[in-house]
């Protein structure tokens, strides 16, 4: 659904702290489309979903498969028509990107046992970028951020400052957080507080 920005509000109104010239930049990227896809690997539905999205969805939890650049650390917009698929569970993917994901998968949903749910408002998107990005996250993120264990295009769900989030290591020095919208303000308070030492 096309968003009429005049009447829509994102949880953080595009807040940002730090900067590209600083050790860390933290910014909300409002109105990022997101979909929860549920489908069981090894079924015809799974094959159909792969074909429809034009990706082979990772069956390994924690891996991201994508056909576009999704972080906009340099301020430019991602390529049109792209999809990134984050494997959140054995039968669960988070799809985001500029493609019309609903349209791509609607036909599959009509004929197969899949569940595609628009969660664009369920979560917002926060980018944490810069040489100190990992340091800022380590204030609240208990999971292993060692490059060998969480390389680029890894993703994980967990608790960040006690708030449930999806964390995605999308490129060098850049992490994307998809927090639940109701926790966004809390998370922002926590992240900007942690950033103080690095700014």
């Amino acid at each position, binding site marked *: 659904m096309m968003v009429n920005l005049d009447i829509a509000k994102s949880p953080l109104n595009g807040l940002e702290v730090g900067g590209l010239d600083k050790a860390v930049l933290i910014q909300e990227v409002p109105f990022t489309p997101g979909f929860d896809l549920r489908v069981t690997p090894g079924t015809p539905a799974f094959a159909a979903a792969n074909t429809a999205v034009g990706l082979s969805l990772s069956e390994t*939890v*924690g891996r991201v498969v994508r056909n576009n650049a999704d972080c906009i650390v340099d301020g430019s917009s991602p390529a049109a028509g792209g999809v990134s698929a984050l494997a959140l*569970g054995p039968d669960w993917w988070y799809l985001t990107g500029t493609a019309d994901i609903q349209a791509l998968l609607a036909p599959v949903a009509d004929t197969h046992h899949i569940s595609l749910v628009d969660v664009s408002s369920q979560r917002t998107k926060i980018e944490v970028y810069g040489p100190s990005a990992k340091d800022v996250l380590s204030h609240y993120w*208990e*999971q292993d951020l060692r490059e060998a264990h969480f390389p680029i295009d890894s993703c994980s769900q967990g*608790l960040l400052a006690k708030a449930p989030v999806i964390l995605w290591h999308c490129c060098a020095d850049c992490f994307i957080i998809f927090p639940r919208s109701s926790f966004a303000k809390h998370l922002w308070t926590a992240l900007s507080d942690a950033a103080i030492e690095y700014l």
Partner: protein
Amino acid sequence: MLHIPCPYCGPRDETEFHYGAEAHIAYPENPQSLDDAQWAKFVFIKANPKGWLAERWVHSAGCRRWFNVWRNTITHEFGPSYKPFTQQPKSPV
């Protein structure tokens, strides 16, 4: 802070999980056919051994999957974790 081996996500901190107590307690085929004592056993009795226990956890802040794992209740050492309805590995003892 236990480090619990989720069979889907790998080891994660305890704070991401909820505990499900003893594993392999199936919902009765026909509850109405049980007498009160049998029903009470299903509802309230969970193994509480001193030593190895096959127990359930759900990775609620992660992949949200329920799974089973052997754990030693004296040492907190974990044995193999495994998915529901898969062959239960032998107790590590």
